[in-house]
């Protein structure tokens, strides 16, 4: 891309930010300077304020009614809100990154906001789409794109604005491995063409290491936000690799601890699927036919690209949606006195038999405190108050949620929410557990915890169906693979 961009300088001078709804400062007293054209990987434990800093540079934190600020941020010496168009941001969730209904319009959106004349917009749109190698028609519906395509579309929208700095906040956290590689390559090509400054936040640093020239690690201490380490990737990871890995960053050469292989062979078969095809909406089969058994004490790993129908298969096996054709049969070991087709069980009958943890924790939260959330299932089973208390206390301890027992589930961190939804599913002691992307977007610490927990459940005789495009999870669990292809 031939482009008249000049790379931007980013500076923080004793900068701090406190969200109006919080007492604690998200960032305090941070000082740093990023030179034009530098490619920076920004790291830090959750709560270190790295996203807030990035949003500050992006000029999207809002005004005085959104929060309180200290010190100054500068983009080319000006306040970020006055340097509109000098920085472009891509955030984590592909669904809220797409703004308009058609690909061309979406890329043009940023140019329109900057007041770029119409005749100049469309050449820029085409150039930007070329740069991210998104080879689709301009009037293609944005809703028909995959997650990886949506993120590349968002990147194209940013590139069309010809920014001097590109800021990326976990742009690949929700993508399958192919999507991750595509987005990384698109960023790399765009930087080579424009020379723009890059700041990227990501847990999975191995993706970005080949690209970045500098690593900055932020940490929080009583005095404020401090720069814990700053230097070339080799220097920082060499000196602080173990420490970073312990704080949840995925550092190459420091893999998370994985549980031992299962000690016993799988037990009895609980569910049999025969000639099973699955559909989100009746009549539109998206995957199958499958012939598979789910056995006690075994992890079945369902893999395949985004959109192939992995989740739909999981929901069907879990008795939440009907089979499109073929059959799902619960054998007597699981069904006991219920019918053979789990979809025809009552919601209550499912509780002790098959529990499901969906991808988005927010869809599953029902109560106003963490403790109540854990007792929803046991209460539906009409267990005694003492029994409910025993089970919730045990789960609170086992999943490290005791300190937030009285908090509202919506206020928890991403990792805590994930652990809570798993704990809530375990409270009714189901014989089979279906987990949809249990480790999606989690840092290395939460990842290792969840994997350890699932392995223990497996060894206690629970049947686990784990849907994931993270091969490392399935390897760590010694899962038997079921591949769902397009």
């Amino acid at each position, binding site marked *: 891309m031939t482009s008249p961009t000049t790379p931007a300088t980013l500076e923080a001078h004793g900068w701090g930010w406190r969200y109006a709804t919080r007492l604690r400062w998200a960032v305090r007293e941070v000082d740093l300077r990023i030179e034009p054209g530098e490619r920076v990987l920004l790291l830090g434990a959750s709560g270190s304020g790295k996203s807030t800093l990035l*949003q500050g540079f*992006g*000029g*999207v934190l809002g005004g005085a009614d959104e929060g309180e600020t200290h010190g100054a941020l500068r983009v080319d010496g000006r306040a970020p809100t006055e340097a*509109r*168009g000098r920085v*472009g*941001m*891509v*955030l984590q*969730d592909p*669904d*809220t990154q*797409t*703004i*308009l*209904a*058609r690909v*061309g*319009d979406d890329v*043009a*959106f*940023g*140019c*329109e*906001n*900057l*007041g770029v*004349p*119409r005749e100049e*917009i469309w050449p820029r*749109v085409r150039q930007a789409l070329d740069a991210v190698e998104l080879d689709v*028609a301009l*009037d*293609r*519906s*944005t*809703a*028909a794109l995959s997650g990886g395509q949506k993120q590349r579309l*968002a990147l194209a929208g*940013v590139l069309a*604005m010809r920014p001097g700095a590109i800021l990326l906040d976990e742009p690949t956290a929700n993508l399958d491995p192919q999507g991750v590689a595509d987005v990384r390559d698109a960023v790399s090509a765009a930087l080579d063409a424009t020379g723009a400054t890059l700041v990227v936040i990501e847990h999975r640093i191995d993706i970005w290491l080949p690209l970045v020239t500098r690593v900055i690690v932020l940490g929080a201490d009583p005095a404020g936000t401090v720069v814990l380490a700053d230097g070339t990737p080799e220097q920082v990871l060499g000196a602080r690799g173990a420490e970073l890995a312990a704080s949840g960053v995925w550092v190459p050469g420091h893999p998370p601890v994985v549980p031992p292989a299962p000690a016993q062979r799988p037990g009895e078969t609980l569910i049999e699927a025969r000639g099973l095809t699955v559909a989100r909406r009746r009549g539109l089969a998206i995957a199958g036919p499958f012939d598979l058994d789910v056995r006690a004490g075994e992890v079945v790993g369902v893999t395949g690209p985004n959109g192939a129908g992995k989740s739909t298969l999981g*929901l069907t096996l*879990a008795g*939440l*949606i009907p089979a499109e054709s073929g059959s799902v049969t619960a054998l007597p070991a699981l069904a006991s006195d219920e019918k053979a087709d789990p979809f025809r069980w009552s*919601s*209550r009958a499912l*509780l002790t038999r098959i529990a*499901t943890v*969906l991808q988005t924790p*927010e*869809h*599953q*939260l*029902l109560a106003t405190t963490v403790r109540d959330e854990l007792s*929803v*299932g046991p209460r539906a089973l009409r267990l005694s108050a003492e029994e409910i208390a025993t089970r919730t206390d045990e789960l609170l301890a086992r999943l490290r949620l005791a300190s937030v027992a009285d908090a509202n589930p919506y206020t928890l961190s991403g990792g805590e929410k994930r652990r809570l939804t798993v704990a809530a*599913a375990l409270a*009714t002691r189901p014989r089979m557990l279906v987990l949809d992307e249990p480790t999606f977007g989690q840092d290395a610490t939460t990842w290792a915890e969840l994997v350890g927990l699932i392995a223990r459940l497996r060894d206690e005789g629970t049947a686990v169906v784990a849907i994931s495009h993270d091969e490392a999870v399935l390897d760590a669990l010694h899962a038997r693979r079921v591949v769902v292809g397009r």
Partner: protein
Amino acid sequence: MIDPLTARPDRPGPIAGRAALAKLAAALLIALPLVLSIDVVSASVALLLEIPLLLLAGLGAREFWTRTAVLWIAAPLGAVTIALYGATSGTIHLEWFVIRISDGSLALAAATAVRVLAIGLPAVVLFVTVDPTDLADGLAQRVRLPARFVVGALAGMRMLGLLTEDWRALALARRARGVADQGRVRRALGMAFALFVLAIRRGSSLATAMEARGFGGTGPRSWARESTWDRRDTLLVIVAAIIPAIAIAVAVLTGAWNFILGPTA
């Protein structure tokens, strides 16, 4: 239908391709005058004159009936209700508790049924073919509504699809958690609240994404797509103005005009 791959309506006929703004104006021009009277003549004349418009709108037969089904149900239902309970005048044909069918209530019933169709059919048929992006362009560039409002609403509309998916996931999650066997109403309320929370969260991340691309700044905004308007658009609006004009003229001449804001006859 709107093509799922291009998100662009693709239809035959002279009306489907008209500017979204022209269709909006046409639907309003037809509807507003007809709201002002309840008489069978003006509504019937309008309905007759609308037939060519309905046929040329670019909808297939099947789509026409499914999209307008609710009107074909609402019109007779409304008529029956008014026939039974409407204002009484003239000969009374049947009386039973509060039910009283009279000449007056039958006339009102007929007027209501025809009116629902005369106002509803063109509105539905014109709007089915409106592309939201075109409408937003028209409203911002021609009517000069504030860009913040128009573009914000357009981007927000895209989220409706996401919310449908959310609702489904909320329902599945409740079944999985053992609370889906009874209390349907209470459960729906709980889900509605959860959906509300999710919508706010999605809305604020969408707003951040828009700001990150320079939306809401103080500088002048440009428009990548020019909102076009040609003679055929003007023609559609004129036709839409003529239909109620003729309908009202006929009603007044035949003495059937019954102005809802005027003195009761």
